[in-house]
């Protein structure tokens, strides 16, 4: 009776002390690794391969990555326009630098002409796009330019062939993560012929 009680007590202690003690002994040289593994430390120090660096997206006015929330890096490919309706469609390629599929669910922004901060219209993502790890996929962003932008281009078209555009009030949704930024993203020089 007494023996059984002692055996059960030893089992109770051993089942807990055994694994915990063994782990402490394994990590005795650096006990902090019991909680903060090298993998987690790399993330905290910004050296992790999980979050790739050097996205080749444009830079925003604050000097940060302009990619879709820093998760994807877009590159302008081409655009088409319909002058009669003031609408345009832009084709971009996005590269997923992560090792995990990313889905761009939505993208909305207001475009402005950089030189005189003229509202140029709004842009949005036509359809959700899923980009596989390390892959590049095309996405379509469509929008409508404003009468003010049209007037600006008409007034300046003899002397200027392109216009510098930036977007603001950007709202991006990637994999359910919504980033709403009040900062600006430089799109670059858009040729006038694209905008009709």
């Amino acid at each position, binding site marked *: 009776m007494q023996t059984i009680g002692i055996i059960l007590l030893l089992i109770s202690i051993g089942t807990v002390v055994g694994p915990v003690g063994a782990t402490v002994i394994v990590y005795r040289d650096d006990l902090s690794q*019991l909680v903060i593994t090298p993998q987690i430390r790399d993330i905290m120090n910004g050296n992790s391969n999980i979050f790739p660096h050097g996205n080749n997206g444009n830079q925003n006015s604050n000097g940060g990555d302009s990619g879709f929330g820093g998760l994807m890096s877009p590159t302008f490919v081409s655009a088409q326009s319909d002058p009669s309706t003031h609408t345009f469609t832009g084709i971009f390629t996005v590269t997923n630098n992560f090792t995990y599929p990313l889905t761009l669910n939505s993208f909305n922004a207001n475009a402005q002409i950089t030189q005189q901060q003229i509202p140029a219209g709004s842009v949005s993502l036509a359809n959700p796009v899923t980009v596989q790890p390390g892959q590049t996929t095309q996405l379509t962003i469509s929008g409508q330019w404003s009468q003010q932008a049209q007037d600006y281009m008409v007034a300046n078209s003899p002397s200027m062939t392109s216009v510098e555009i930036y977007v603001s009030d950007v709202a991006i949704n990637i994999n359910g993560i*919504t980033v709403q930024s009040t*900062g600006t993203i430089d799109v670059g020089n858009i040729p006038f012929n694209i905008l009709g």
Partner: protein
Amino acid sequence: MQNKINILALIAGISTLILIVISIFVPWWQLAVGSPSIASVGVSPVNLNLNLLGNVFTIPIIYALNIASALTLASGGIVMLIYSVKPNQTYSNKLLGFGYKKPLYAVILFIISMFALSYLVQRFSGFAFPLLGSSSLSLPQGIAPDGANISVAVSAGFGWPFYFAIVVAGLCVAAKLYHPKVNVDMALPPPPPQL
């Protein structure tokens, strides 16, 4: 003395061992971040699955506690099985007292730790993640980049193994309550000597 079987303890012991195996693969509680999910947390007393962008994280001290928990539950289950076939021995009460508490403690400690985790995360990081259901989690302004508001869709819920664990704990308690009935032979007075 007739050797009876405590059938409830037998079922409880087997169920405890099954629960351990299930809990390794299916979490008791799961949190998914993003839609489609980019990170997930799966928790059970015997396993913690932290997944971020397809990368699985293992925290050694948690891993050790998971093994300790699995061994504790396994010892409880095995002792319950031994008790179930020897319910009226002098040491049976000790076996039962040891065995029936393990799943019960596992469920109670799991619930307490989940609420404690929720409270501590909210207290120290500002995130108020749901224990059950879906919500949009806003990052504190200190974490988000300049001028940006970042919100994340999260969903959480208890899995069926959690409810199964409650049933197993209930079976263990029932086995304990059933013990006096199985053990009634021992309580009977010896027959009078025949003259």
